[in-house]
């Protein structure tokens, strides 16, 4: 009997990332070059990682939500709220540490709200988080009073512009969060339980998993990571723009999870692969930018690239290829 060996789950996303990085190096031979400027690592690759940091953070939160077969459309709005809260606190004379705490608390509150709607009231995730997606931006505007709130606080700004041991802060923050989350879900049974809920919520209930608490927890986490993304974005521009912060980043975050091998049908959770997806998406964006296409072409090219990557990873295509290989081997 001929047996078709299927690829391990991590292979397609990692291959996709490598292909995109390879294309970038072919187009720009200097892509992988790293230089040290004033004690700070620079280069195209570093640029990809820094620019991709906010979306990567959103995606890390989104990954848990999607693994339970949910979705969080409010992450962009939560970014705006957290940014507004932080900027407002700093403008009002608060210390940078308390600004961070307030912003994270705001994100946590938003996440808990979503989690309650989905976990306890059993609203459909899209509908439940759509509420905050729309209302959240309004809340952020209320906090900033419709103005762009600016501040001058060097330690806070360093969250985006600072470096530690030559590595830019946003990269460190994303890497730390990804490692912590991986440790959290793999050294406890949370990963298994989240995946079980995504694969079969009814069965999860019947084997005694506390599905409601876990669902609330993943949305709460998504709120916190979105707030963190908002903090970095705010630190980056030293101000909060409630109208534009995090705008249209929800689809990017979802796309990153999917590029990392996640399925919207739930049941797959890997923070490492989510980072792989984030690098893939940002590398496409940066590559298009570097190639000098006009901005209006950029979005279309990105859509084309993403479509190709998703089609290549599609289970239907892989099954078809396996089927063909089997028949060829049989004849």
């Amino acid at each position, binding site marked *: 009997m001929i047996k078709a060996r299927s690829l391990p789950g991590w292979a397609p996303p990692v291959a996709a990332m490598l292909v995109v990085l390879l294309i970038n190096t072919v187009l720009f031979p200097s892509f992988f070059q790293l230089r040290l400027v004033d004690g700070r690592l620079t280069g195209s690759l570093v640029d990809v990682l820094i620019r991709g940091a906010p979306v990567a953070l959103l995606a890390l939160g989104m990954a848990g939500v999607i693994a339970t077969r949910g979705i969080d459309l409010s992450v962009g709005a939560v970014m705006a709220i957290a940014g507004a809260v932080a900027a407002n606190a700093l403008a009002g004379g608060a210390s940078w540490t308390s600004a961070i705490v307030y912003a994270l608390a705001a994100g946590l509150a938003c996440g808990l709200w979503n989690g309650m709607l989905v976990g306890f009231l059993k609203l459909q995730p899209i509908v439940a988080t759509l509420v905050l997606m729309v209302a959240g931006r309004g809340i952020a505007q209320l906090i900033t009073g419709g103005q762009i709130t600016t501040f001058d606080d060097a330690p806070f700004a360093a969250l985006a512009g600072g470096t530690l041991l030559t590595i830019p802060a946003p990269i460190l923050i994303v890497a730390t969060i990804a490692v912590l989350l991986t440790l959290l879900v793999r050294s406890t049974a949370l990963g*298994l339980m989240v*995946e079980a809920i995504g694969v*079969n919520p009814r069965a999860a209930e019947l084997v005694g998993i506390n599905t409601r608490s*876990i669902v609330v927890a993943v949305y709460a986490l998504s709120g916190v990571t979105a707030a963190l993304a908002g903090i970095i974005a705010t630190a980056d521009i030293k101000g909060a723009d409630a109208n534009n912060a995090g705008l249209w980043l929800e689809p990017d975050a979802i796309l990153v999870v999917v590029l990392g091998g996640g399925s919207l049908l739930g049941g797959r959770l890997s923070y490492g692969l989510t980072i792989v997806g984030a690098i893939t998406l940002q590398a496409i964006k940066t590559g298009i930018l570097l190639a000098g296409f006009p901005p209006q072409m950029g979005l279309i090219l990105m859509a084309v690239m993403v479509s190709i990557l998703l089609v290549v990873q599609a289970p239907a295509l892989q099954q078809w290829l396996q089927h063909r290989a089997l028949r060829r081997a049989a004849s």
Partner: protein
Amino acid sequence: MSDAPPLLEARGITKAYPGTVALDDVNFAVRAGEIHALMGENGAGKSTLIKILTGAVRRDFGAILIDGRPAEPDSTPRAQQAGIWAVHQEVMVLPNLSVAENVMLGCQPRRFGLVDRRKTRRLANQALAELGLSLDMDRELGSFPVAIRQLVAIARAVRANARVLVLDEPTASLDAPEVERLFDVVRALASRGTGIVFITHFLDQVYALSDRITVLRNGKAVGSSRTQELPQVDLIHMMIGKGLEQAIERERPANAKKGNVAASFVGLGKTGLVEPFDITLHAGEAVGAAGLLGSGRTETAMLMFGAERADTGSVEIDGKPRRLRSPRDAIRAGLAFSPEDRKADGIFGDLSIRDNIAIVLQSKRGWARKLSRRKQQRLADEYIARLNVKTPDADKPIGQLSGGNQQKALLARWLASDPKVLILDEPTRGIDVGAHADIVKAIEELRDSGLALYVISSELEELVAYSERVSVMRDRRQVALLERDELSVDRIVAAIAASSGDR
């Protein structure tokens, strides 16, 4: 009439899904003017057969003949063109369209390329009048009760020249007068030569309406007979079967010692779900539960396990009073429950066998105290060997196993949590003979090792063989509790039939 070939005939229909054979060499025929009841318990293969006849599913083997000529109804539209129509449980109408549009759906008369509304109304009105129905043609169909929507769906089929009409559980949500009206319509259609296939769980309706009965069980057609010649007791026998092919010879040891009370449920009930019942389970004994589908047997198990919240009654596990508000509470108290629908309520299809086995013990421990990978592997290996699960390794996704092996893995997940009381809902349904015997053996071993079991099964001989008592359910209440010395398949069937007669 009997010389003419049947309107619709299925010969040797076979259909396999991964892990189960849904239909095995089934013959079935509908003649003109005949009302033919298709009977069988859940999972017997009724819906698969209907789907094949109406073009929704393709058969693996066998032939379909229409008017004695081979036919290929390989899609719903093609089946409908050939005159085979089905009206399903969830009536397929478009509630936001008008009555007239629903009747004429797909064949609206046109004028200058546009829909001719006046003619639509007229033709629809005509079609409904034939069924003795007069409705406001312009009202949204969704504003009418289910009974009317159903008749509109039938009118649509009749207008499109349906020759065979399949009615799948048409009376499930109708009240008595509505049922009568539906039956009048069905009889009128039959007298005009339409062949009717009637699927229902209500035995009295089968006897009130049908000319012929065909019974499916475990994917096989176990008999076909004229309705007058098939007494109700025999019909129930055919539906729920004589049990295992190989006779269970093992005699229970007469001195089977009764252990302590492991669990007692007193007056447990929930309005609209199950009337209050009492069950006491002793350590080292199996209590069986019998009853037809919809008799409340599964709901009883759900109440015992806290998956449904009881509004009356009390529960004691191991002598301690407990309130079971969720499966979590029940599992902590030492209960275990393997549900009837393996796929929907049991397995985590994409996860490995190892994860599927470890998960109950894991959720009992809580998320913070993770079972080590080595411990999980040991558990999985131990139970794969002990229950004879056929798989190359524990890494395989459980969804790829056959039904019987999935069932064994599900049993393993509960045994790994070390319960005091094990509730099994149809543990041997839809699995092959070998796995069937393994499961029965496991039930007996578990009983003898001191576990208290509550086993719901349609395999009555099996129940009689291993049960100390059998609770008989009907119409959402416990109607009999047969003790060991009065236990036999015939007594159980009599208890079910006696009670279903007076509904």
